[in-house]
């Protein structure tokens, strides 16, 4: 990365973890052992909104810096956007390019990171479990009653204010939303992320026009 100042990736991972912890803590301070399920649900949703909101802000600012040096990024097709994210953004934020990119008809992209840096140090998922940012589930349900979804943090994690896999993914999706909002101003892109037991993290950029119902 000529012409640009760099810092160690370890420091940025540490800072990102602390930011996610901070966003969770400011909501979870209200969580008590005896909170009702409805109260915990609301606190959880607020924490995820906060996380995505901060990520969005960071993504917006970062894309302005990245585009400042990419004067040739004039035409933005979905493929251009997906490549920019997988190459320029991943290099800037994670120190490497995305490992793989799959697409369907140039409107639906899956960016696959084989060992997402910000989830290193987190526990491995059990076979059959998936974490997805699409599933909104209160923490009370994560203890046995949703067999196929490990998305919600355990109650212990929330009471101790420890980030979960999902918190990290929600924050990263927020960054992607901020970045793509600048890169692709003419349409809305639906973005979500999933993590599987093989430790692959997929970031989905869905450019398909939404059918109004």
């Amino acid at each position, binding site marked *: *990365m000529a012409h640009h100042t*760099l810092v*160690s990736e370890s420091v940025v991972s540490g800072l990102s973890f602390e*930011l996610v912890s901070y966003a969770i803590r400011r909501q979870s301070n209200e969580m008590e052992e005896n909170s009702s399920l409805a109260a915990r649900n609301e606190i959880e949703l607020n924490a995820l909104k906060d996380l995505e909101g901060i990520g969005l*802000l960071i993504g917006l600012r970062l894309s302005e810096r990245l585009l400042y040096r990419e004067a040739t990024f004039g035409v933005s097709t979905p493929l251009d956007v997906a490549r920019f994210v997988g190459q320029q953004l991943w290099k800037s934020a994670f120190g490497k390019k995305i490992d793989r990119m799959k697409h369907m008809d140039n409107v639906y992209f899956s960016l696959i990171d084989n060992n997402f840096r910000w989830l290193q140090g987190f526990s491995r998922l059990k076979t059959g479990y998936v974490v997805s940012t699409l599933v909104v589930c209160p923490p009370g349900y994560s203890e046995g009653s949703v067999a196929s979804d490990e998305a919600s943090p355990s109650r212990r994690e929330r009471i101790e204010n420890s980030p979960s896999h999902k918190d990290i993914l929600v924050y990263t999706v927020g960054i992607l939303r901020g970045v793509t909002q600048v890169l692709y101003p003419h349409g809305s892109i639906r973005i979500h992320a999933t993590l599987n037991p093989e430790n692959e993290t997929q970031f989905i950029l869905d450019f398909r026009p939404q059918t109004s119902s």
Partner: protein
Amino acid sequence: MSASRSLTAAKEGEKAFESGEKVSAEFFAITYGALVQQMLADLPQPDNVETVNQQLDAMGRRIGARLVEEFGARSGSPPCRTFAQAAESAALIGLRMFLNIKATVEPVRAADTFSITFQENPLALFVELPEGVVRERLWYSNVVCGVLSGALAMVGFVADVVFVRDTLRGDPTNELLLTFKGREKETFQIER
């Protein structure tokens, strides 16, 4: 503290930085700025800026405690037996290795307090502090103090680290004071 040893330490810091995974300093500065902004917005009373200084220091301690293992593995720095050696390693190798900060270090009082000075601060890219209580009381990069004290604590040195000059406040340079407070006591003893 000989000049040649300082030169060696600075070279070691540069080598350690070059050999590690690196990301954009802009992304780092933007992330940090968003967090500081959020902390300021969350203050129950807007003039209670010292709270943010404390939060940034505590956060830095946690980050520093996590970085020290990588420092030990990758820096090539020998174990520090004296605080002077630890201060020099932290300032010249650690700050360079992780933050790409090129610092100088000078003793202020013999073997007790060290001044760490640096011109370019990667955290302060794109930052202007508003006039008033924030500019007067916020040490914007206070996380650096916590990183240093947190890392030193993990290798047994208790240190106070504080900013005394900051270019964001209009000072000509950035300066930290690092003061040795003692050795970390063992949390448990094995009696035989």
